[in-house]
C-alpha cells in the first residue's frame, strides 16, 4: 500500500493545524527569536509600532497565497514556472535556495548557542544534530512532529507570562505600538526593522502555506474558512512577536537605560528576558526553546526547499526514492543541510549578527517574491473571478514599495558608508 511521503504528510499536518502554525513556525524560528529579542533589547517599546503594518501585510500576503492555492490547486513554485518560464523561476529558485541555506545555518546557530549554554562544544553537537535530522526524516512520524509543535509553542507562552511579570510600563507599550517612530539616520534601527519584516513575512513561508492549502484540497468553497484561519493565525503570530519584544524591552532595555551594560552580544544573553518568570532557570528554558526551534526548522527547511525547487524546475522529488531516481532532489537537500550546518562551524563566526543579517536578506528579497505573486494573482486566465481586490492590490503594492524603499535605502547606506 502506498503511503504519503514525508513532504505530503508534513504539509497535511500543517494544513490541519492551520496557517497560524505555519506562520508561527516560520516566523518564530531561531531567527525570529533572535530578531524580536534584539529589537526589544536594543530599542525598547518604540519598535512595537512596526508590528501593526506588518500584521496587515502579513494577513494580505498570506491570504493571497491561500487564495492562489485554493483557486488553482497548484503550488506557488508551479505557478511561477508556468507564468514566468524558465529564466525567472531559475533565478527565483536560486535565490530561495541560497537564502534558505542561510536560514538553515541560523537554525544551527540556535542549536550551537543552546549547546554552548549547556557547556558542550558546538563541534560535537552540530554533527550530532545533522545525524538527528537525517534520522528524523527517515523515521517521520506525525505524532512526534505534533509534540514538537506543542513544546515549541510553550516557549512563546513563557514569553507572554514573563512579559507580564516584568511589569512593563504599559503606557510606553501602548504609545510605542500606536506612534510610529522613524529613524532613517539610525542604520542599526533600519537593520532591525528590515530584519523584523524578513523574519515575520519570510519568503519561504508563502511557498509552504500555498503548498499546504493545495495538499489539503481546499477549494473556492472553503476559502472563507481558510481566510479566517489566516487572519487569526497572523494575529496570533504577531501578538507572540509583540510579547517577545516587550519581555526583552522590559528587562534588558530597561536595565541598560538604568546604567547596566547588558549589551547583548550573543543570543544567549536574551535569556535574561525570561528571568522575571523563571529566575535562575531562564537560561535553561531559553536554551531548550532555541534548541527545539532550531532542530525542528533545520529538519523541515532544507527538505522543503529542495521540494519547492524541484517542483519549479521539474525534477523528480521524493524522499522514498533511490538517489539515482531523484539525484537533483537529494543533492539539493544534502547541500542545503550540510552547507547550513558547516557555516556554523566556521571559527569566530559572529552568531547573532549572522542570524539577524540573514533575516535582513530575507526582507530584501521579499519584494521580488511579492511582485511575482501580485502579477500572477491579477491574471484572469489563472485566477478567474478570484483576482485581487483593489484593497488587496493597494496593500500588496504598498508593501512592495515600502520594503523595497527601505532595502534600497539600506543598500545605498551600505555602499556609501562601507560595510561595517
Amino acid at each position, binding site marked *: *500500500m*502506498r*503511503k*504519503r*511521503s514525508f513532504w*505530503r504528510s508534513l504539509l*497535511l499536518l500543517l494544513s490541519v493545524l492551520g496557517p497560524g502554525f505555519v506562520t508561527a513556525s516560520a516566523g518564530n524560528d531561531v531567527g525570529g527569536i533572535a530578531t524580536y529579542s534584539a529589537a526589544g533589547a536594543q530599542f525598547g517599546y518604540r519598535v512595537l509600532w512596526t508590528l501593526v503594518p506588518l500584521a496587515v501585510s502579513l494577513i494580505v500576503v498570506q491570504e493571497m497565497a491561500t487564495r492562489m492555492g485554493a483557486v488553482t*490547486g*497548484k*503550488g506557488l513554485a*508551479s505557478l511561477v*514556472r*508556468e507564468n514566468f*518560464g*524558465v*529564466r525567472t523561476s*531559475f533565478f527565483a529558485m536560486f535565490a530561495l535556495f541560497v537564502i534558505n541555506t542561510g536560514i538553515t545555518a541560523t537554525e544551527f546557530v540556535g542549536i550551537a548557542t543552546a549547546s554552548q549554554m549547556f557547556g558542550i562544544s558546538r563541534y560535537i553537537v552540530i554533527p550530532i544534530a545533522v545525524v538527528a535530522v537525517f534520522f528524523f526524516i527517515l523515521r517521520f512520524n506525525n505524532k512526534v512532529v505534533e509534540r514538537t509543535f506543542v513544546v515549541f509553542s510553550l516557549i512563546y507562552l513563557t514569553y507572554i507570562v514573563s512579559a507580564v511579570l516584568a511589569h512593563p510600563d504599559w503606557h510606553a507599550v501602548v504609545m510605542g505600538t500606536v506612534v510610529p517612530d522613524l529613524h532613517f539616520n539610525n542604520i542599526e534601527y533600519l537593520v532591525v526593522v528590515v530584519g523584523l519584516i524578513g523574519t515575520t513575512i519570510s519568503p519561504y513561508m508563502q511557498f509552504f502555506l500555498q503548498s499546504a492549502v*493545495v*495538499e*489539503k*484540497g481546499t*477549494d473556492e468553497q472553503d476559502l472563507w474558512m481558510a481566510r479566517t484561519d489566516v487572519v487569526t493565525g497572523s494575529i496570533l503570530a504577531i501578538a507572540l512577536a509583540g510579547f517577545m519584544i516587550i519581555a526583552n524591552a522590559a528587562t534588558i532595555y530597561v536595565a541598560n537605560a538604568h546604567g547596566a551594560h547588558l549589551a547583548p552580544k550573543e543570543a544567549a544573553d536574551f535569556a535574561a528576558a525570561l528571568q522575571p518568570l523563571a529566575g535562575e532557570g531562564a537560561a535553561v528554558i531559553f536554551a531548550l526553546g532555541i534548541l527545539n526551534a532550531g532542530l525542528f526548522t533545520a529538519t523541515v527547511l532544507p527538505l522543503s526547499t529542495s521540494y519547492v525547487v524541484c517542483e519549479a*524546475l*521539474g*525534477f*523528480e522529488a*521524493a524522499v*522514498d526514492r533511490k538517489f539515482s*531516481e531523484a539525484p537533483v532532489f537529494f543533492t539539493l537537500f544534502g547541500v542545503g543541510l550540510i552547507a547550513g550546518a558547516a557555516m556554523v562551524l566556521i571559527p569566530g563566526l559572529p552568531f547573532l549578527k549572522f542570524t539577524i543579517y540573514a533575516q535582513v536578506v530575507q526582507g530584501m528579497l521579499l519584494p521580488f517574491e511579492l511582485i511575482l505573486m501580485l502579477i500572477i494573482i491579477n491574471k484572469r486566465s489563472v485566477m478567474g473571478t478570484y483576482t485581487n481586490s483593489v484593497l488587496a492590490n493597494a496593500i500588496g503594492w504598498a508593501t512592495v514599495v515600502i520594503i523595497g524603499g527601505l532595502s534600497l535605502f539600506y543598500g545605498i547606506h551600505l555602499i556609501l558608508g562601507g560595510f561595517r
Partner: protein
Amino acid sequence: MAFHEGFVSELVGRRATVNDLPIGKVADFLVNKPEDTFPAVDGLVIKTAQGPRFAPMETIADVDHDGAVALTSAPKVAAPPDSDSLYLVSDLLDKQIVDVDGRKVVRINDIELANTGGKLRVVAADVGVSGLLRRLGLKSFGKRFTPWIYKNVPRSLIAWNSVAPIRETNPSHVQLSQESKFARMHPSELAEIITDLSAREAAAVIHQLDDETAADALEHLDAETQRTIIEDIGTERAADIIEEMDSDDAADLLAELPEDQQTQLLAEMNEYTAGELRELVKYSEDTAGGLMTTDYTWIYPHRTAEQTIRKIREIAPESEFIYYLYVVDKQDRLLGVLTLRALLLAPPDATIEHIMESDVVTLATDTPARDVAATIARYDLLAVPVVDADFKMLGIVTVDDAIDAIMPENLARELPRITARKHPRPSTSSG
C-alpha cells in the same frame, strides 16, 4: 524543408518572413489532434504588428531559412481559440506531466519536433537539465566555454507516446483518445504517481481512467489519500469506482467516510453491491469480518465436475478468486471446499459432494487479524472462509489481504517494487 529536428524553444521568437521580408515572430504551435501518438503540427502562430495570426503548415515554405521561418504568403486569419486546439507553448511548455514509462511526475522544459514524412511532428518532451540550459540561453555559452561540461549534461527526452499531461488541457480530447496513456501503467505505479500529486491533480488523473483501472489504483492507496480523492471526484463517479473495487477494500474506504457521504455513495450504487457493502462496513477493520471479501466462487454439491467447470468458465471473468470453490446449500450454508486443481483432475461425471473436502477450516467475523493470518499460515491456505453461527457463508479472507493486515507499514514500504510491465520500455534517453 531543410529542417530535420529541433526544439520548440529554438523556433519560438524566430523571425517569420515572406519573400525575405520580416512580418513578425514565431509565437506558438498549433496541434489539432493531440491524441495521435506523435501528433502533427498544423500551423504556427505568428506574432505580427496586427496581433497573433495563424499560418497553416501549407503556407510554411521552410522552418529554417537562414535562421528564419519562411512563409509563402502572409497569414491573415486570427489564431483559433485555445478551447478548440492544443498550443504547444501556452498549453504544454512548463507544465507538469507524467512520464508513464519512467513512472515520474516531471515538467516539460522543451518539446522536440521532427520532420518525418513531410510533416512536422511532436516527438518528445525534454525534461532534463539540457532543456533547462537551452531555455536559460546557456547552450551556446556552455558549448563555447565549457564543452566538456556541456557534453556531460544528461539529456532526458521522453518519447511523446509516454507523455501524459496531468490536466487534460482540452477536456473534449479525453473522449477522442481511445485509451488514456495512464491506462498503460500498473495500478500500483499509478497509485505511486497519485501519492506524488496534490488532491486536485490526483482527481484529474482519476478522471482520465476508466472505472476499473481507477478502482485498482485506489485499492493501492492509503485511506487518507483515498478519502481526499473520493471527495474531489463527485459522488456519482466515486460510486461507480467503488463498485468496481474489491468488496473488502470498498468497505474499508466507506468506513472511513462520514455517515452522510457513505449513505449518498451507497444510494448511487446498484442494490446488490450496496447491500453487501452495508454488511461489510459494520465489521471492525482488523478482524476477519473487516478483511473479508464477498467476492468468492460458490458451487452446488449435486452438480457434476463437468457442469461445474462449465459454470466456472462462465463466471470466472467476473471473479477475482477462483482457486477455491466453496460448496454451499440453498441456504448458503458451507458444506465443503474444492480446489480448482481437484476439480480439474476429477472424472467429468463425478458429483461435487463426493470429491469435495468437507472438513473445512472456518473463521468467525470477530477473529482478530493476527489469528486470521496464523490460520492461513498454519494450514497453508490461499484463502479461508468466514461463516456465521449457522455455518452460513459470509465471505473469504485471501492470503494477500491477511498479509497486508499484519505487516508493519514501514516494512511494506521497504519491500522491493515488483511491477509487471505490459509494454517494453522504449528508448527514452540518448546522448
